[in-house]
């Protein structure tokens, strides 16, 4: 029990760092780029947020050492793992892109915007999976099927991923309205929705785990 509470504390701090990195990434380009605003130069903001989240995530999970213990310690194994992780990441970007197009994003016209959103979504969801679970599809399927979580990090993954996706989904609603607001331009409302969803997920996850700590029984712990 104490172990769990310790873990939750760790998660709270990790999530706080990730959340603050998003805020910093939002503010930082002010100092480097002129005429920067979240809506006006949206793609800059988008890349800065996804980059910083990626870097912070990788660092934290590497420092915490949550990722599954490597089977071999050879360099070639590590390299191949990194390469496979990159491939997974790219594949997930493509997957998100395809899903966005299926949802009605234009095929050719704003392909760059769509792909940027896909990158943002991947760095919010897939990258964390890669950090926690490694490039192991079986493990992913286990985590994302019902009652498949085996640690609090799995649960947090489930919650943040679901929140991000739902945030993006909800963010798409105002697009067809004829209000002619600047944030209705594709993909601003969706990426903002994704970010708010992700932040909400970061906040909710430790709280939910703490609240349900009695019911949570992780098989392998």
């Amino acid at each position, binding site marked *: 029990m104490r172990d769990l509470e310790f873990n939750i504390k760790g998660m709270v701090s990790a999530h706080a760092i990730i959340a603050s990195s998003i805020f910093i990434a939002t503010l930082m380009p002010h100092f480097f780029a002129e005429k920067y605003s979240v809506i006006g130069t949206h793609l800059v903001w988008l890349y800065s947020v996804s980059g910083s989240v990626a870097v912070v995530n990788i660092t934290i999970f590497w420092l915490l050492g949550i990722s599954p213990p490597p089977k071999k310690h050879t360099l070639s194994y590590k390299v191949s793992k990194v390469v496979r992780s990159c491939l997974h990441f790219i594949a997930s970007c493509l997957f998100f892109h395809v*899903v966005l*197009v*299926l*949802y*009605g994003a234009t*095929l050719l016209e704003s392909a760059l915007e769509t792909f940027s959103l896909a990158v943002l979504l991947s760095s919010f969801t897939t990258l964390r999976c890669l950090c926690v679970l490694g490039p192991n599809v079986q493990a992913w*399927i*286990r985590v994302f*099927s*019902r009652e498949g979580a085996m640690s609090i990090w799995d649960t947090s993954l489930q919650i943040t991923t679901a929140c991000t996706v739902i945030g993006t*989904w909800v963010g*798409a*609603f105002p*697009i*067809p*309205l*004829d*209000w002619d607001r600047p944030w209705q331009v594709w993909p601003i409302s969706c990426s903002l929705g994704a970010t708010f969803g992700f932040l909400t997920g970061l906040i909710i996850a430790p709280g939910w785990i703490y609240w349900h700590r009695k019911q949570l029984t992780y098989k392998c712990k």
Partner: protein
Amino acid sequence: MKISSSVFASFCLMIEISGIALFLRGFFPAPIKSSFSSKTKLSDLPAEPLTGNNPNSSTILVPLFHRVVIVLIDALREDFVFGAKGRQYMPYTQHLVEWGSSHSFVAKARAPTVTMPRIKALTTGSIPGFIDVVMNLNSPVLLEDNLLWQAKAIGKRIIFYGDDTWIRLFPKHFMEYDGTTSFFVSDYTEVDNNVTRHLDSTLKRDDWDILILHYLGLDHIGHLSGPHSSLIGPKLLEMDDILRKIHSSLTSQETEGSLPNLLVLCGDHGMSETGSHGGSSDPEINTPLVLISSAFKRKVGMDNPGTVEQVDVLPTLALGLGLPISQNNVGCLISPVFEHTSLRDQLRFMHLNSFQLICLLKDSTPNFQKEEGYEQFHFAEKSHGNWIKLYLEGNTSEVLSNLGRKVLRQYVDALKALSSALSKQLGKYDMYSMIVGMVLVLQVLMALLLAMPEALSRGAEVEIPLTSSLLSLPFYMLWLLCCSIHVLVCTSAGSSCYLCNLSWIPALAAITTFSAMLCVLLSMAGRKLASGAKTGTKNVNGSGFSELDVLLLIGTLGNVISLGSSSFIEEEHQTWYFMINTLCLVIFQDVCCKYFRERRNSSDDDSYLASKQDLPSLLSPISEQGIGSHKWLALSTPLLTLACCRLLRSLNQTGVQWMHLPDLSHWLNRWEHKAELSLLSAASLLLIFFFVQKCCSLVSKIALALGLLGVYSYRAAVGNVLFPWQLGSRDISKGTVEARFVYIFILGILFTGSKDLLRSQVITADSRLKSRGLWEVYSGIVLLCALLFRPHNLPVLACSLLIQTTMAQYIWKELQYDAAQTTIMHYWFGQAFFYFQGNSNNIATVDISAGFVGLESYLAIPAIFLTAFSTYSGPLLWACHLVCYLSSAQDSWNPASVGHGCYCFALLRSIPTVVYIILVTALRYHLFIWSVFSPKLLYEAMHTLVTTVVCIFFTAMDQNHIGQS
């Protein structure tokens, strides 16, 4: 009384339909009409106002123009004359507008921008109600006071060439006429040549006074290929040439001393960026109005045309021709046109116009004295009288003309105030009928909701306490109460309510139904409360919803909530596309869960296997490889559906905001892509045959194949697609023979199907025969859809069949979705396919050409039926598939599924309809009520009607089953 849930649902829907009808009757206001059925006569005209008595005042009206030619070009947009297109393609008209003796205006048409209401507006000066659109297809004789009647009454001779709507509106008014029909939209040259061919001879003759020409070609081009099509230019040049011809002929005939002639160029409505019309966007309502006559002063240089209302044309023309203004006119005359006349005449015209408006106002408003315009009019009339007195005294100083101008201004203000007061009248609703209708549908919804646990139970039977409540005291008391309320309302509100104008038998019947419903509802609620208190906390077991249930619930409710916003209604297709995409993804996740978890837990999870063995639909001995391929097929089904939906989404752009974007259907319909279109429609027809034939008997298979072949040859005959062996030019016909050939096969298939259904019910009770019969009925409907759909829409039909087949085979049966879930999914897909077809919540997108397939001339009932069928074919097809699917499910594993499905279908339709009716009542003074909310209301009402028909079909199938068991 215990009735099965399908019967219950059908009854509820039928009561709902009557409630909606009542609501619609109250909602759509009858247009303002003066109560006198007679027409204004010249002798009724008021004399010039005069203080004191002077025998010099005149009552006669002198015409200003000798001959009038009205050139009405259908869908002539304002920028086709005044804009860049006009400069390019209408040089002569442009020259007249800029330098000639002419007056030009932008005339604003009111929504609905459809031809017949616009013609009525131009000839009667009234604003026809929204409901006139629905009547647009068969225009009855115009009985109101109108310009043509007045002209004929004083012996003017009228000639008309053009759209035959006029001939139906004014059957005996024309000395000579030639009508062209407006329904063969693909023809845009012949239809205008039929008008122009008479022009030369007519212009030479001098036995007429008014010539009306109504050109349809431009409108047809707009419908075919939009306002930026390359066909527009030549058409405008042609029109320009016609105008030049008329104008030169009119000016050459003018002799010294005779009255000048007048040429009027106008449009009935504009055209939106996609080329359709019916709504109230700016390009649709702004039409040009150019009046050309040698009487007007020559202009020097172009100034921006002023803005007038379309109804203002009527008083202007009437006074110009020396006719009395029609009684129901709400327009005010266009003063620049009369600038060349004397000040006395101008004041006289103003006085006549405002006097007519005052008469109409007195007739339609009880407290007309309070209106602003009324006082202004009396003030102006008084000063008019003073002016006349001064004038007749021979005063000719500048003071007099200044005073006259002041009076003129007072008249203009009074006219404006009167006109706006009258237009406001249009927003009056018959609240009593609306409220009664609304409460009726609300009761139905409550009944449906209260019966939910019973209707979805295993027995699928609902207990209706009808006899007990009909024999109870509260029923009689309620009945008396309702009667007294009715009498109270009717005596106080006067004759403006529809319900009060009914004779007492239908009124009593309505009241009885109303109170019986209320009583039944109360007793159902009471029983529910009692049983709820008894069982209490017992049934709170946390049987959680799956993700799918959550989505289905959120989606249904979210759609209902979104109906409150006009922009969401305009773009409702986006909501549905979004939801079915999400639905597919959730299904995909479900499938993944099932197949991947199954593999992982196959060793230790026996319960799943046990449940699987309950399912007799699965062919139990499947080889390992069979399971593997089955799994991959099941996994790819949602993805395939997603891909199909994405393709169909880009086939037809619909809605309002992005309607103008190019889409696949525009690309396919260009003549240079005819080969691609032919290939696509042939492939779609083949696919349709492939998917439909699998369950049919041999005879129906052959009939189906021949029918689909007939569909293709019909399209080839009409000129939409090419025959591979006939690449050369072919005569375009109406294709009546081919279409009738297909109708015969449709009827044959439907007959075989219903014969099988009857046999299965009466003689053998064979479930296989029944499902085959059902499927045959379904395939008959598919064939009818294939015939009515435009060729570029055939892929929609093919994709819907593809999705239905794969989903039924790999998803719904495999994942054991219950009847309610399957019904909701069918409903969603039906909605999405409604929009995939290119429909929207705007009247303009209804494809009326479907109503003329296989008909030589316009026949009201078949045309309306065919149009409604082709519009709602998406929801209808999915509903029919649902019947087939659930009835096969009923025979194999779930005995109550048809009842459940029928109940859910009725509930799914009732919730949005009822909420929408309440919303519309609340938003009845919203700015967009006529342009956005009313069309949607009509669509909802029609959809409910279609659903009722389907539910009755459901009930019949369910009865079959009950009869068997």
